[in-house]
């Protein structure tokens, strides 16, 4: 339950000071009126901060999560609309004001958009707000009509008095609502899910039409009156600094105004950001030509000799480290069990660095004056963005506003605020003028925050009777400071193995690391689900039957860590859930039906974000070194779906994202910098390689489990297992493109 903030500071004085500080300019800055609950705004009357109701009954819902294609805007609106009993056809949305959010004690709750947690963390708040407003409208109507509340029904933005048929629209009651007390959140009875008319329906996404006719404005598209454009050159070696530059003819090119030095490191207030040089011009192409014409001298960092070979050697040294950085899980005695096992198996697995590769390159627009700052940022972390902007601008946060704009993909990349710092630094050089800083694809690929590379060693011990006695998994990986427990998913193994040791050796590198769709699970799931397959193959067992035999709720260790499991299920119940989707996918994929020569199926199961997934991939080897993926079958147990059509889209999208990573994704390092520059050398799965995706739903829980990123991980080992089971090689390092996929028994 979230108590509504009580304002100890007079709200009138707070708003007055913010408006004064903003100097009256601020495009889009709303003057919010004197009462924090009710205020006139351009779209009508604001109620409880979250909605405005216009006289024509249009309701505008404020959205506190960033849309990046995952359907957040629509889903959040559905949550509030349900309890509000509003007519969906008259619902509009707009983003919240970040300045108001912070000025009023974070009144909108969670604004970071990540971890597929939007629904889970916002659901309660939005449903309560909707219910409170609905009740207030009913009470206002009761007062106006002079009838008891119990005789009124609210539906589709209209309140009807049952006995007389009198109707009042929400839009007609806004003045009366101001006089009604806000009902106590604890006293509310929210609708039962079985009575939902909006949540759980495949409502069309409110923001889709704009991307079919060119009218949608992404950050990269923003055009403000008097705006200038900036292009950038960022230090090519991680950790290097700007030494000097020769402008040459750059400044005399048409439309070019200014060169701006950008500070990285501590001075830039964003860790992992390097020095850069920017040029401000009248349009982007002019700025780009100019900045590329400047001869820049960089001072290399010590990392200039760093490359992928050195990184791999460093990771490998971790495999033999005497002491781990952290023991993630330990039960029984793995060493003894391995020494006593009838058979042992050992394998190393490697995943490379990956760049999230949003379709829209990085960008940010900023305006700085001596008194205030304003930014338009496609960001997944608005609070970090406005704070970084304030620090870099040298102004208090309350002197600024952040306008959220459409993201052309997030995938975790836009949580970092490097482009915000750069944009403010550029804007400071031309005060009073809005400047849009854009990156090229090359900038975006080479100056990202990368999903870490990692090396894993697995050891398994098998008893004479074929049971698995021991499971050992050592992970070496760079640690990101946000990851408290180390890479994800390695310790939450639900298999019934009596002796387990899972540990983690930190081996840091100079490459800036950051979250990517699927997060740390994408590091470990590949190795784990592949090694299970290897154990099955060693026992000549069917891989589905083998994994199933390990998922035994009766013998699941009670010590399995909770991880991100959020349903209150104990480990036995969780392994039961995982086994259910495993069974479901095997059945739906006709697992037992043989395929022809050079064809095979691979299976993988995965728990993430309160959801359970199992995947079967079917492939055909083409005999010429490659393969086609015939289909992907998914069994999904994500709990509740706010919008089923959107959930399907997210899973199809996650399949594409995971297949790209498995087949092609590879960032390599050379001379202290990233080697890849564009989609020509960082290959992306194309439409001709996209397999059909069948999704089978197991929907009988009430949690809001992950649908946006959990499939990214298991689809990868499902594919490589399929390649092996089709007679191809065992792939232990990604991407698959680095291997030649020939049948194992092919004549040389």
């Amino acid at each position, binding site marked *: 339950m979230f108590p509504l903030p009580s304002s100890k500071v007079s709200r009138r004085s707070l708003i007055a000071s913010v408006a004064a500080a903003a100097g009256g300019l601020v495009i889009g800055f709303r003057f919010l009126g004197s009462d924090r609950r009710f205020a006139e705004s351009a779209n009508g009357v604001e109620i409880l901060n979250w909605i405005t109701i216009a006289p024509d009954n249009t309701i505008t819902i404020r959205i506190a999560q960033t849309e*990046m*294609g*995952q*359907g957040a805007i629509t889903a959040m609106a559905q949550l509030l609309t349900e309890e509000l009993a509003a007519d969906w056809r008259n619902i509009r949305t707009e983003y919240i004001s970040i300045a108001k959010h912070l000025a009023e004690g974070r009144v909108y709750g969670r604004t970071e958009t990540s971890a597929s947690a939007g629904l889970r963390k916002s659901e309660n708040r939005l449903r309560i707000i909707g219910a409170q407003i609905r009740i207030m409208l009913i009470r206002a109507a009761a007062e106006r009509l002079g009838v008891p509340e119990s005789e009124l029904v609210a539906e589709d933005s209209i309140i009807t008095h049952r006995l007389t048929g009198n109707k009042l629209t929400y839009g007609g009651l806004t003045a009366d609502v101001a006089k009604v007390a806000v009902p106590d959140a604890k006293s509310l009875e929210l609708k039962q899910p079985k009575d939902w008319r909006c949540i759980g329906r495949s409502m*069309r*996404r409110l*923001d*889709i*039409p*704009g*991307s*079919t*006719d*060119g*009218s*949608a*404005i*992404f950050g*990269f*598209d923003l*055009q403000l009156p008097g705006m200038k*454009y900036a292009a950038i050159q960022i230090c090519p070696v991680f950790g290097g600094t700007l030494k000097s530059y020769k402008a040459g003819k750059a400044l005399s090119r*048409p439309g070019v105004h200014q060169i701006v030095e950008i500070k990285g490191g501590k001075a830039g207030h964003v860790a992992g950001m390097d020095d850069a040089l920017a040029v401000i011009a009248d*349009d*982007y*192409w002019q700025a780009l030509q100019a900045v590329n014409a400047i001869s820049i001298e960089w001072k290399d960092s010590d990392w200039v000799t760093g490359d992928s070979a050195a990184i791999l050697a460093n990771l490998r040294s971790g495999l033999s480290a005497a002491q781990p950085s952290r023991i993630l899980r330990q039960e029984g005695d793995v060493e003894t069990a391995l020494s006593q096992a009838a058979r042992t198996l050992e394998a190393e697995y490697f995943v490379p660095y990956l760049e999230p*590769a*949003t*379709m*829209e*390159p990085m960008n940010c627009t900023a305006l700085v004056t001596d008194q205030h700052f304003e930014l338009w940022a496609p960001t997944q972390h608005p609070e970090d963005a406005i704070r970084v902007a304030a620090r870099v601008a040298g102004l208090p946060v309350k002197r600024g506003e952040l306008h959220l704009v*459409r*993201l*052309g*993909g*997030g*995938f975790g990349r836009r949580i970092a605020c490097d482009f915000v710092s750069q944009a403010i630094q550029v804007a400071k050089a031309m005060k009073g003028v809005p400047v849009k800083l*854009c990156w*090229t*694809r090359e900038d975006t690929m080479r100056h990202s925050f990368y999903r870490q590379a990692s090396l894993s060693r697995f050891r398994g011990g098998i008893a004479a009777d074929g049971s698995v006695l021991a499971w050992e998994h050592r992970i070496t990986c760079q640690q990101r400071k946000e990851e408290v427990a180390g890479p994800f998913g390695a310790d939450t193994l639900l298999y019934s193995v009596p002796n387990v040791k899972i540990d983690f050796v930190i081996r840091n590198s100079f490459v800036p690391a950051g979250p990517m769709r699927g997060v740390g699970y994408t590091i470990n799931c590949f190795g784990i689900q592949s090694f299970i397959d290897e154990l099955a193959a060693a026992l000549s067992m069917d891989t589905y039957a083998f994994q199933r035999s390990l998922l035994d709720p009766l013998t699941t260790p009670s010590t399995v860590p909770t991880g991100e499991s959020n349903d209150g299920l104990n480990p036995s119940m969780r392994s039961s859930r995982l086994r259910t989707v495993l069974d479901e996918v095997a059945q739906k994929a006709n697992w037992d039906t043989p395929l022809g020569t050079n064809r095979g199926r691979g299976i993988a199961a995965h728990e993430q974000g309160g959801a359970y997934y199992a995947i079967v991939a079917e492939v055909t080897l083409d005999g010429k070194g490659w393969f086609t993926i015939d289909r992907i079958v998914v069994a999904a147990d994500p709990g509740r779906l706010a919008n089923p*059509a*959107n959930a399907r*889209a*997210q899973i*199809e*999208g*996650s*399949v*594409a*994202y995971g297949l790209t990573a498995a087949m092609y994704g590879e960032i390599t390092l050379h001379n202290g910098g990233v080697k890849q520059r*564009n*989609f*020509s050398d960082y290959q*992306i*799965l*194309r*439409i*001709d390689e*996209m397999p*059909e995706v069948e999704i089978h739903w197991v929907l009988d829980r009430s949690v809001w489990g992950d649908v946006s990123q959990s499939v990214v991980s298991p689809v990868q080992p499902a594919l490589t297992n399929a390649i092996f089971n089709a007679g191809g090689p065992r792939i232990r390092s990604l991407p698959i493109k680095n291997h030649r996929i020939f049948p194992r028994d092919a004549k040389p």
Partner: protein
Amino acid sequence: MRFEFIVNNTRRSVEALAEEPLLWVLRDKLGLTGTKYGCGVGACGACTVHVDDRPVFSCLVTISAVSGKSVTTIEGLARYGQHPLQRAWIEEQVPQCGYCQSGQIMMAADLLARNPNPSQSEIVAHMVGNICRCGTYLAIQRAIRRAADEISKR
């Protein structure tokens, strides 16, 4: 230098360097931001427009090369955004982040203009130059099929 050309059936005149890519002329000089920058090297298709009824990657075509020619962008594809593909894109809820979709629709429009009833493999072969990072490929195919069916019923 001044260049004249037709954009979405309207005669336009711009001051630009001859080598400036059409993409940036459309976006920054004419304010037509529906055509997107994704890679600048013709690898992603986000910048797809029609020049004299042929699809081109506008990041690779200079303004001087389209002098006197007719350019169609996503904004000019159909009146009120009601090309059968645009309707199908909404019916099938194709876009996720939406950034690549202008290019996808323009490339698909060219397909249907040439081949109103394409097979599945023809659809895929035609669209292979357009990348989508959100993975809307299956929905794109469904929408093209739907639009083709609608057109064939006329």
